[in-house]
C-alpha cells in the first residue's frame, strides 16, 4: 500500500562536489582552459584571527593612549645601503603593477602612502611617473620579465625589490591578458598591443642564490650602494629561503603568504601552492635568529593583512613591517557594494569579484578602460587609503599599549596564544589556557 510521502529529505550538498566545484567543472568542460582570476587564496585557512593577545594584568601594565607614546616607526635596509628607508608606520603598500591597476589607482596609492609616511612598490610593469611623482618612498621591483626595467628608474628608486615569487603563485610568472595591454601598457612593456603577456617564471640571467648574490652586487654597483635591496619570496620553504636570502646579500626580506593576492593567475595555483602567512613567519624569524640577523636584516610580511590586529600579530611574531595589497585595493574602493548591479551583470557580486584580468572592473581600479577609469578619483582614493593606514596603525598601537609596549617592535610571541591546534603549531604559540605548543619537537 503506497502512501504519499509526507517527509522529504532535504537536498544535501556534497562537501566534496559542492556547487562551486561543480560549476568550475562545467566551465572547464565548456572552454578547455584553466580558470584565471585575481586575488589570493579564498578558502578558509589558519590565519591571524586564530591568535589572541594576552593583555595587561597583575603582572603586566598597560600604557595610556596618546600621552604615553607607542612608537611605530621602522628603519629598513641599514645592513649595506647608504640611504636606508625610514618609515613612520610599519605598513607598506605591496607591489602591484601599472597594467594590472590603472594609472589613477597607482597615483592614489602614492598619495595615500606618502600622507602617512610609508612606501609603495611598483609591480610587473615598471615605474610610472604618476607613482614616482606621488610616492615619497618608492620601492622598485626587479622581476623575471624585466618589463620597463631601466637604469634611470633604478637610480630614481628608494629601494630595489628582487622578486623571486609571490604568495599567490610561488614559482609562477606574471600574466596580463590582451584586453589589458593598451597602447600605454604595451609601450612600457615593449609588447604588441592586445596580445596575452606570457611572463617567464625565472629570471633570465641568474638561477639560484649563488648567482643571485652576484646579481645583487651588480644592482648595488649600478646604484653606487645607495639604496637597500629587498628579496621577495612566496611562502614555501621559508626557513631555507630566508637563510639563502641573507647569504645572497639581502638588506630586507619580504615573505608573502598564500593569502597574498595577484592580478591574474590560474585559480589552481592560488589555492594549492604555498603556505599560509602565519605559518611562514616563525620559520623566517627562526632562520634570521640562527644567523644572528634578526632586526639586522629586516623582515616584511604580507598576505592577508586586513586590520591592526593582523599588523600587531605579525610584529609580535617577529616581523619588522607588513605589506598590504588586496586591503589597499579595497580601501580605494574595489568590490564596493555601490556597484552591485554591475557586478551582477558580470556574473559576480560585490565582495566576490575577482576577474580582474578581464579589465572590466566597475570600480575603475583594476582596468585600463578609459570610461571605467574615470569613475575612480585618485585624490579621494588617496585620502581613503591614508585613513585606512591610520586606522591600521592606531589599532596596532591600541593592542601594543594594552600589552604594555612603548614600541610596536617590542611585541613578542609570548604576548600571544592560539585558539586552535593548527594555529598554535603554525604560529608556535601555546594553545590558550595551556602551555602546549604542538609540533615543537619536529620544527626545523
Amino acid at each position, binding site marked *: 500500500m503506497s502512501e504519499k510521502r509526507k517527509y522529504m529529505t532535504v537536498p544535501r550538498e556534497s562537501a566534496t562536489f559542492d556547487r562551486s566545484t561543480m560549476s568550475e567543472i562545467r566551465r572547464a568542460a565548456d*572552454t*578547455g*582552459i584553466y580558470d584565471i582570476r585575481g586575488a589570493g587564496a579564498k578558502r578558509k585557512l589558519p590565519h591571524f584571527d586564530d591568535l589572541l593577545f594576552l593583555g595587561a594584568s597583575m603582572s603586566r601594565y598597560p600604557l595610556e593612549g596618546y600621552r604615553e607614546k607607542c612608537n611605530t616607526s621602522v628603519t629598513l635596509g641599514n645592513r*649595506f645601503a*647608504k640611504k636606508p628607508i625610514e618609515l613612520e608606520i610599519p605598513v607598506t603598500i605591496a607591489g602591484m603593477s601599472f597594467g594590472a591597476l590603472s594609472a589613477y589607482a597607482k597615483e592614489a596609492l602614492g598619495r595615500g602612502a606618502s600622507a602617512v609616511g610609508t612606501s609603495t612598490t611598483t609591480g610587473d610593469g615598471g615605474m610610472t611617473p604618476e607613482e614616482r611623482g606621488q610616492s615619497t618612498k618608492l620601492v622598485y621591483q626587479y622581476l623575471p*620579465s*624585466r618589463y620597463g*626595467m*631601466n*637604469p*634611470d628608474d*633604478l*637610480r630614481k628608486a628608494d629601494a630595489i625589490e628582487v622578486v623571486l615569487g609571490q604568495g599567490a603563485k610561488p614559482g609562477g610568472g606574471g600574466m596580463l591578458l*590582451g584586453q589589458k595591454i593598451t597602447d600605454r601598457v604595451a609601450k612600457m612593456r*615593449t*609588447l*604588441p598591443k*592586445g*596580445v*596575452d603577456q*606570457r611572463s*617567464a617564471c625565472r629570471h*633570465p*640571467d*641568474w638561477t639560484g642564490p649563488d*648567482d643571485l*648574490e*652576484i*646579481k645583487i*652586487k*651588480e644592482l*648595488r*654597483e*649600478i*646604484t*653606487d*650602494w645607495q639604496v637597500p635591496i629587498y628579496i621577495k619570496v612566496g611562502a614555501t620553504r621559508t626557513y631555507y629561503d630566508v637563510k639563502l636570502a641573507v647569504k645572497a*646579500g639581502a638588506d630586507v626580506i619580504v615573505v608573502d603568504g598564500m593569502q597574498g593576492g595577484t592580478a591574474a593567475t590560474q585559480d589552481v595555483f592560488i589555492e594549492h601552492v604555498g603556505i599560509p602567512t602565519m605559518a611562514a613567519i616563525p620559520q623566517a624569524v627562526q632562520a634570521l635568529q640562527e644567523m644572528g640577523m634578526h632586526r639586522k636584516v629586516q623582515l616584511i610580511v604580507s598576505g592577508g593583512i586586513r586590520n591592526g590586529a593582523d599588523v600587531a600579530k605579525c610584529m609580535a611574531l617577529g616581523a619588522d613591517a607588513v605589506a598590504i595589497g588586496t586591503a589597499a585595493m579595497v580601501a580605494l574602493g574595489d568590490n564596493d557594494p555601490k556597484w552591485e548591479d554591475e557586478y551582477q551583470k558580470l556574473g559576480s557580486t560585490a565582495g566576490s569579484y575577482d576577474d580582474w584580468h578581464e579589465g572590466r572592473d566597475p570600480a575603475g581600479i583594476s582596468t585600463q578602460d578609459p570610461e571605467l577609469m574615470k569613475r575612480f578619483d585618485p585624490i579621494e582614493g588617496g585620502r581613503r587609503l591614508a585613513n585606512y593606514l591610520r586606522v591600521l596603525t592606531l589599532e596596532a598601537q591600541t593592542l601594543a599599549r594594552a600589552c604594555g609596549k612603548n614600541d610596536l617592535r617590542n611585541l613578542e610571541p609570548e604576548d600571544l596564544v592560539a585558539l586552535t591546534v593548527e594555529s598554535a603549531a603554525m604560529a608556535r604559540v601555546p594553545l590558550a589556557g595551556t602551555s602546549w605548543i604542538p609540533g615543537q619537537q619536529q620544527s626545523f
Partner: protein
Amino acid sequence: MSTNNLAETSAIETINGVGTIDLATQTVRDLNQALHDQHDEMSIEKWDVLNPKGHHNLAVGVNQKLKIDIHGPAGYYCAGMNQEAEITIHGHTGQGVAENMMSGLVRVKGNASSAAGATAHGGLLVIEGDAGSRCGISMKGVDILVKGSVGHMSCFMGQAGVLAVCGDAGDALGDSLYEAHIYVKGSVKSLGADCIEKEMRAEHIEELTELFERAGVTDQDPRDFKRYGSARQLYNFKVDNAGAY
C-alpha cells in the same frame, strides 16, 4: 660576503689622458664609481681597465659617452645596463654581458657566456666568438650580432630587436617569440614553440646590411642568412594550442 669599500674611492690615474684602473690594486667599486662620476661632466673620455681576471660587474650602470677597454676576461654582467658607452672586452666574458643595455656599443672579442644581451632595450652587442645559451633572452630592442654560434634557448621570449648569428644556433631557437627578428646563417638545431622560418625580403636584407655596417663587419653577405620569426599562434590563448604550454 666580501666587504665593500664604502669610503673614498682611490684617485684616478691617467696615462696619456686615458683613465686607468688596475684591478690588481684597485676594486670593482673604484672602477664603477669612477665611471659613474663621469655622468654629470665628462672629464676623461677613454678608459683602460687592467687585470680584470674574470671579476664580476665591471663597467655596470655607465651613463656617459665613454670609450672603455677591458684588457682581459670579464665575469658576470659586464657592461650591465649600459647607456651610451662603447665598451670592449678583450677576452671572454661571463653570464649576462650587456644585460638590460639601453644604448651604446659592447664588443666581446672572445666568447660570451649565457644570457648575453638579456632583456636589453637598445644599443648594439657584438660577439666575435661564440655566445652561450639563451643569447638575447627576452630582448626588448637591442641588436645582437654573433660571429660564431649561439647556444640553446637563444632569443627565448624575444620581444623586439635583431639577433643575427653567423654560425649555428642550438636547440629551441626563438621559443615563445614575440616580434624580435632572428637571422641565422648556419644550421639551427631546432626551433622553439611558435618560431618558424620566414621569407627574406628586401627590407630584411637592408636590416642586416645596416647591422653589419654598424658592427664593422665586412665579410658577411645578408643573402646567406635565413630569417626566423614568430608564428604568432600563442598571442591569444586558443584551446588547440594547449599542448604548446
